[in-house]
């Protein structure tokens, strides 16, 4: 009779349940780690303590509440602020509605984390150092957004055909927003030189990304093309634009575009900056979409050819929809970096969020308050970019699970 040899098994290690066990496992599990932990705690402690003591005593935070409107809307005339509030309400409402319609199949759209996020936003709005009625207006806009999310989900479930009308609604909203910001046709004209701060940053990045998208698709397709002329032209454009710094493209737009146009035409400075950003973004979009195009197996093209589709139909019906879906997370990443790159227009003289901080710091009242202003602007950019990259990660996870 053979005896069964049982392998002695040890009990699985218990997860660290008490604080001391967690400390021993994660921070002090070897002598080197213990030394490292002690050194880091000492250095970090000193730095944090120094920062907190500076932030509470030596720092003068008055510069931020006093200039809050300038940070957000630049030198927009104060009596026309209602136009910007209206624009914010329309965009927030349509955004909430779109979110509801697009996510109508999810069992629970308003998750707990989302509601916590909205709650934090409401708290921040409540504590804003502006007049009380204005805070109520902003809170009302936030409540309106949440309401539109719920309504969008209901309407999307009742009549799904409404999803087809959403892109048209967004295009219309863009023109309405442009009309509200610029004026004309019944409203007072606000020149683009008065635009500044956060609104100019968002406007320039959104317009550049949207305009660069069709160019990027064309360039990517051109680079893949088997026609040598188109292939070389697109490759040359992409490689040259990707090889020079963005700031030189902006200076090209600033200095050389007036030379290339018929004498006497003075294109708007904001328009020239958007042109430079669009040309720049188109090259990077082309590379992103090229990655998506290369991920499509060749069998798709061959099957389309076997079905009798010619090249434009193959691209439009079969290849591009799949390629764009794959590249959406990378395109969102591009949008985040373009949002950060709009700070460079401060060097060519536009007053975006960073540029307008220079003029705030030139005010004799606030000379030398660099750290406070830059920390505030940095926190704003960080919050927006972090939320967008979090949304991109969630989007990528959702798109992947549908395969």
């Amino acid at each position, binding site marked *: 009779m053979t005896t069964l040899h049982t392998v002695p098994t040890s009990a699985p290690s218990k997860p660290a349940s008490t604080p001391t066990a967690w400390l021993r496992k994660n921070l002090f599990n070897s002598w080197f780690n213990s030394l490292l932990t002690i050194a880091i705690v000492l250095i970090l402690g000193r730095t944090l303590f120094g920062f907190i003591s500076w932030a509470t005593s030596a720092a003068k935070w008055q510069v931020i509440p006093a200039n809050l409107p300038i940070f957000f809307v630049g030198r927009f005339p104060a009596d026309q602020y209602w136009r910007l509030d209206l624009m914010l309400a329309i965009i927030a409402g349509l955004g909430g509605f779109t979110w509801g319609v697009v996510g109508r199949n999810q069992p629970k759209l308003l998750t707990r984390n989302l509601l916590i996020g909205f709650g934090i936003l409401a708290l921040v709005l409540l504590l804003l150092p502006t007049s009380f009625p204005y805070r109520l207006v902003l809170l009302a806009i936030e409540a309106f957004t949440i309401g539109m999310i719920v309504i969008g989900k209901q309407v999307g479930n009742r009549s799904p055909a409404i999803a087809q009308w959403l892109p048209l609604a967004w295009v219309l909203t863009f023109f309405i927003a442009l009309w509200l910001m610029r004026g004309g046709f019944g409203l007072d004209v606000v020149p683009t030189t008065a635009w500044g701060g956060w609104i100019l940053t968002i406007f320039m990045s959104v317009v550049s990304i949207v305009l660069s998208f069709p160019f990027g698709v064309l360039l990517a397709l051109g680079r893949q093309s088997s026609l040598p002329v188109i292939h070389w032209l697109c490759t040359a454009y992409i490689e040259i634009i990707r090889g020079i*710094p963005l700031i030189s493209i902006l200076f090209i737009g600033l200095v050389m575009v007036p*030379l290339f146009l018929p*004498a006497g035409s003075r294109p708007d400075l904001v328009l020239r900056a958007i042109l430079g950003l669009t040309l720049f973004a188109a090259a990077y979009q082309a590379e992103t979409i090229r990655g998506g195009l290369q991920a499509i197996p060749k069998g798709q093209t061959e099957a389309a050819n076997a079905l009798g589709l010619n090249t434009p139909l193959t691209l439009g019906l079969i290849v591009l929809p799949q390629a764009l879906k794959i590249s959406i997370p990378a395109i969102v990443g591009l949008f985040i970096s373009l949002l950060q790159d709009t700070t460079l227009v401060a*060097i060519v003289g536009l007053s975006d969020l960073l540029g307008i901080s220079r003029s705030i710091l030139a005010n004799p009242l606030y000379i030398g308050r*660099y750290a406070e202003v830059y920390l505030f602007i940095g926190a704003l950019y960080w919050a927006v970019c972090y939320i967008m990259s979090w949304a991109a990660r969630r989007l990528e996870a959702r798109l992947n699970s549908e395969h």
Partner: protein
Amino acid sequence: MTSSTDPSSEKIPIWRDERFMRIAVQAIVLLVVITIGAILFGNLTRNLQQLGRQFDFNFLRNQSGFNIGEGILSYQPTDTYFWALVVGFTNTLRLIFVGFVAATTLGILAGVASFSDNWLVKKISQIYVEIVRNTPLLLQLFFWYFAVFFGLSQGANITRLPGSVFVSKKGIVIPWPANQPLTWLSLIALILLAIAASLVWRQRTKVMEEQGAAGKPQQYMLIGMSVAGLLIFLFGLGWEFPQVVNNDTQGGLRVSLEYGSMLAGLAFYTGAFIAEIVRAGIQSVSKGQWEAARALGLHSGLAMRLVVFPQALRVIIPSLNSQYINLAKNSSLALAIGYPDIFATAQTTLNQTGRAVEVILLIMLTYLTTDLIISLVMNQLNRLVQIKER
């Protein structure tokens, strides 16, 4: 059944003939591009003529008349514009070479740290990457320049940092080897020692593999070499420590605040992206490699150094190429800080001479050439670490 229409005898209409369409589309595109180019070029020449300028590069021989704040080559305002651009280019090279080393070191440290067992180290690395990647580079440069370095150099005083580093409004002074003959001899001796040590190391590995010996003689030689190297490094190089004399510093190497903040900003920014690349590269190595290394008895430091990191390098180096090119391009932001790199110098030239087209062409050429050289070097490096297949 015979069909009256034989497909091979039917003529395909010309707009559906693939060969014709290919040539026609290319011809149309070429025509459109050339027409647009001709219109723009015509406008350009007409506008330039109206402003009284021609397109030539003779202005490079004129005297520049402006001052460049710092540089390693000697420069006077009576030198030509060409020499001013050369000095600006050396400033750019000075910034990006040191920036490459600093960013790579930071990136590798932060990337490897995100795999550490220590929770604090992991969290710090993650927070560092998240903060730096989500704020604009220009903002970080302003922060380093105005908030950190201006803040450290308060008023007319000279602040002393640990490690004998002095910061004042005139710049940062760090200890640096003196420029004596002994220093150059020591440098050559150190390089020869390093080459000899690597040869002894290879010999030791060969002996240990082929003969199963412990390699003790080679180990003693290596220990002796490292002690000698340490002695030469400490005493032969002739370190000069700066001293404060009459409210000014003497000795050591002085770098301007602009250079310091550009270097710090670029190194931290690119370092965060390199950290993400290193993290992705190490994650791409299959877990079985870690487990096999541990099964062989290697602790996690040795496993990372001998097994995982060399394989991760294959994935890391192609992405490093684009990060280095980004660093070279981002160095153009020195214009906003006041560091006289090639872009800032070219801007001053453009403002003074009004030669927009020529100067911009020169800038584009410079950056494209720099990118090309960086790509060539990185491609060579890439070839070294790729799997050598037969």
